[in-house]
């Protein structure tokens, strides 16, 4: 019985020989999506976080509305609205198909990145808010008392201090983003999971292709965690163990 299970579980791995270029291509796409989403998403998150603690009513309202929509609706719905909704408005613009931005506007790839950037902005932005509020008031006051204000207060004291507090959640949010890239196949961008799903249904095998996905994601996760561990260790040296 156990051999039976094992054999059906590890259907077989022979398909890898045939498909490895597809798999690597998909993985590369996944990594690209992740990279650009983070590159633009984290800065957006910082802005959103500060917007959420802003005393300016307009900025606060804007940030709050943004966070509430992004966190309040499924990423899938957001992606569809961007791609099929927003995206289908463009072809109506005259001459746009001949213009140089058409390749960008018609490519699902950029819509996935846009959706993920907004998503990271919303979710991490809200964590940012909590971290900003947890910075001891006295240290901010000391900053103000010495003439830090506005951007300099943020850059030198408030932000680095808040970043420390949210350090341990970064890795998790980044991995969440990694897994969210898997929605890309819906708008015809073939990421790792997309390619694997093609293989799975073409070969009628279930588990081993998914194991390959798991290994791919695991490798990426290990790298992500290792990177953030280093940041965290840097942070740990400023505090005493309890």
């Amino acid at each position, binding site marked *: 019985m156990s051999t039976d299970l094992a054999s059906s*579980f590890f259907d077989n791995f022979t398909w890898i020989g045939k498909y490895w270029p597809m798999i690597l291509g998909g993985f590369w796409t996944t990594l690209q999506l992740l990279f650009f989403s983070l590159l633009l998403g984290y800065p957006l998150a910082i802005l959103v976080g500060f917007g959420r*603690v802003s005393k300016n009513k307009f900025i606060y309202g804007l940030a709050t509305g943004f966070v509430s929509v992004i*966190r309040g*609706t499924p990423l899938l719905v957001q992606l569809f609205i961007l791609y099929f909704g927003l995206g289908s408005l463009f072809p109506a613009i005259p001459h746009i198909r001949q213009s140089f931005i058409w390749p960008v506007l018609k490519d699902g790839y950029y819509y996935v990145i846009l959706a993920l950037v907004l998503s990271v902005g919303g979710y991490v932005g809200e964590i940012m808010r909590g971290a900003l509020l947890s910075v001891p008031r006295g240290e901010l006051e000391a900053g103000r008392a010495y003439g830090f204000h506005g951007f300099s207060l943020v850059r030198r004291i408030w932000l680095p201090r808040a970043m420390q507090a949210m350090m341990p959640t970064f890795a*998790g949010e980044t991995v969440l983003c990694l897994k969210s890239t898997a929605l890309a196949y819906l708008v015809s961008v073939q990421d790792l*999971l997309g390619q694997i799903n093609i293989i799975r249904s073409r070969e009628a095998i*279930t588990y081993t292709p998914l194991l390959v996905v798991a290994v791919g994601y695991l490798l990426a996760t290990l790298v992500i965690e290792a990177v953030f561990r280093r940041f965290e260790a840097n942070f740990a040296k400023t505090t005493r163990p309890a």
Partner: protein
Amino acid sequence: MAETDVEAFWDQLAAGWGTAFLAGLRITVELSIGGYITGLLIGGLVAWAKLRGPRWLVALANGYSTICRAVPEVLMILILYYAGQQALNGLMASIGFGAVGIDGFYAALMVLGIVQGAYASEILRGAVLALPKGQIEAAKAYGMHGFVLFRRVILPLMVPFAFAGLTNLWMSILKDSALIFVVGYKELISTAMAAAGSTRMYFSFLLFCGAIFYALTQFSNIFIKLIDGHIRRWMPRLG
């Protein structure tokens, strides 16, 4: 034309898709709550293991959260539900009993709980690391320890640090509950996709689905705001 679209959409809802959405809503909510609570319990234990456990347990806990965060949920549910079922079938057959079914709902709940637990453990661990050390020392100095120390001092102090991360988790489990589709249950998103596919009214049904989720999270937000205000009552407002 837009009018007829809207009318057609309402006709579809009235024709039965409305009921389907209600059923989907119920599954989404039940599964999310169940998975979230399971996740918090697992996350709490694992966070504790990471912070206080012996070295081997720390390694184990780290391995758990790395793997469970990295592996796609769909693989876990396939393994737990189908491969697990297969193993169980074999086992029952070998000891001479008939097949026993694994319930898809609880399998999905477990998978969500296990994945959420991995994220929650990191959030909770981070919150503990950010605690003001002096106040914990004070509690220890007065003889507090173990659960009392945790409940009376550590927990209330760490909640402000963990809160945003934990509400994020709640928001995402509401949507991740779509996972249960693989084992034959239709929650909100898969109901919307089914309705969209069957009626070809993609946009209307997806927007409708988005609206329901939005209502759901706004409803959650009422509670989140209340709790947030309560846990921040002892912090002076930023000047």
